[in-house]
């Protein structure tokens, strides 16, 4: 797995750079979207998204429901096309690689760009241990039980779940509370050693305490990963993210990017009236 530290650039200033208003330097960008459209059949639901995602930072995508935020997210790890008749067009570059190039296997994309879903979805027939280990196992990243135990412990620690489950690793994944299950899913995604972590409203099914835990986790994780989070909770975006992108639904029924920038600026001095209206609660 290639992390930012491996490329020779130091990780820490990346988040600071992301938070500044200057244009992101090319080697601070991990994902480049240019004119991305998403369709369900012939219906366009996302229009002309052009966006740069900064590495080792948390970028929040906010907007009212129906603005295509989740759809856009799912385009990035090529999950959008899993739905029959769904497709995406445009340029989506990950570290210089066109992810929609015909030669690329979507499954390979998803091993570098992980996803955590809105509803925690641990595998019901597997234990906590197997939940974390299985994906890495079937992807051939770990072989043998010893290596698996190492990975499981490491990932559960990274997901801040280790202490709570270390004595019950053999229990079913669904025996945990909602917040714990979501952290389990995060641990599982981390076991794949991804570079980017996509989170689709990860806290919307959780209580406030669990939400806070996840938010803290995100801030810890951004040192090693790039995080892209879709949320309808503006306060969460303001709390947690370094950059924010605001999407809304246009008159044609498709979501489009209104504006994007450092979180501090977006929430205090938005350039667009629409952004200002949304943030002050006038719609959405």
């Amino acid at each position, binding site marked *: 797995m290639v992390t930012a530290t491996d490329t020779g650039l130091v990780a820490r200033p990346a988040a600071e750079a992301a938070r500044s208003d200057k244009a992101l330097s090319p080697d601070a960008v991990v994902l480049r979207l240019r004119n991305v459209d998403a369709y369900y059949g012939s219906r366009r639901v996302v229009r002309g998204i052009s966006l740069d995602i900064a590495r080792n930072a948390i970028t929040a995508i906010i907007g009212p429901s129906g603005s295509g935020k989740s759809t856009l997210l799912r385009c990035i790890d090529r999950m959008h096309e899993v739905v029959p008749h769904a497709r995406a067009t445009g340029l989506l570059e990950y570290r210089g690689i066109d992810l929609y190039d015909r030669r690329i296997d979507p499954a390979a994309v998803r091993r570098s760009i992980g996803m955590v879903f809105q509803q925690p*979805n641990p*595998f019901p027939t597997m234990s906590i241990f197997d939940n974390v280990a299985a994906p890495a196992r079937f992807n051939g990243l770990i072989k043998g039980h010893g290596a698996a135990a190492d990975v499981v412990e490491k990932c559960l620690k990274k997901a801040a779940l280790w202490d709570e489950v270390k004595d019950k690793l053999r229990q079913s994944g669904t025996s945990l509370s909602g917040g714990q299950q979501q952290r389990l899913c995060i641990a599982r995604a981390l076991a794949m050693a991804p570079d980017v972590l996509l989170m689709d409203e990860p806290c919307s099914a959780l209580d406030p305490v669990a939400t806070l835990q996840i938010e803290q986790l995100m801030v810890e994780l951004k040192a090693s990963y790039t995080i892209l989070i879709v949320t309808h909770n503006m306060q969460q975006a303001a709390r947690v993210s370094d950059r924010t992108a605001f999407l809304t639904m246009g008159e044609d029924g498709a979501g489009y990017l209104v504006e994007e920038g450092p979180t501090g600026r977006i929430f205090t001095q938005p350039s667009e009236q629409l952004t200002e209206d949304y943030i002050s609660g006038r719609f959405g």
Partner: protein
Amino acid sequence: MTAGKLSPSAIQDAPRRSMVRRRLREGDLLLRLVALVVTAGALAVIALMMFDSVRTAWPVFQNFGIIGFLTGQEWAPAFTVYGAWPFLYGTVLTGAIALIIAVPISVLIALMVTEILPPRIGQPVAIVVDLLAAVPSVVWGLWGLLVLVPVIRPFERDVAHSLGQVIPFLGPPTPGPSYFAAGLIIAMMIIPIVAAVTREVFASTPRLQREAVLALGGTRWDVVRSVVLPIGRTGLVAAILLGLGRAIGETIAVTMVVGNNPLVGGSIFSPGYTLASVIANEFNEATEPLHPEALIALGVVLLGLAIVVNGAGLIVRRRFERSAGRGR
């Protein structure tokens, strides 16, 4: 007719509501009563038939004892000796052969339709597989007798003379009609039901779980292996039980290809007999003392077996559906 369309006259009729209510209750009562009587009556008649059959067969059970009858290896009407074992053996053996052939094929077909093919192609494929079930048993038997048995005879002979030398169970004789031929025909007849139930089972895999595997970089096979099959385990058991339930009841097709030999054959290529096929074959010529009763006794055994296997299949299926509903 929708709830929103109350006619003005209905509202104005409010004062007469008490009378309407009485009539309503009577009308309701009448319907409920009729439905109850008819239902109870129909079920009672069927229960009566079951009871009558057992009563008719009772002398046989008395004579040989229930266990004695079930384990009796000799079936000789001329000597008034009746034992059900050869037929039980044949029923179970042909059922097992049918399952071994049909279940893997049905599971793969179900995977094909639910996981691999796009719905537009998958639907017609599912319908064609279901059409296999529409072919009448006697037509399967006709084709089996005149086409299948001659065609597989060389295959039977080859296996019997190779593997069969080492494993007597797979050995000669190979006259053609046999447990194996019957099992093969039954397999074709139960593929539709096993595939249909398995299809439903696989289709009910929660989308969230499938997407979880895909989002982790899994292939289609990973989805099947990690999520579809484990979650569908119970449902698969139900499908197998229901397939077996159908298999043990097949009569006419079996009687035309099983060889009609009331002895326990030594190999799967030997001619044999099943509960259903011996009843069909011997009933109209059953003139010996106790012969008809013995055949009806076999029918009772078959009935018991069918109730147990199908009942179990239905219960397991219901349990699976309930847990699948919860799992979402």
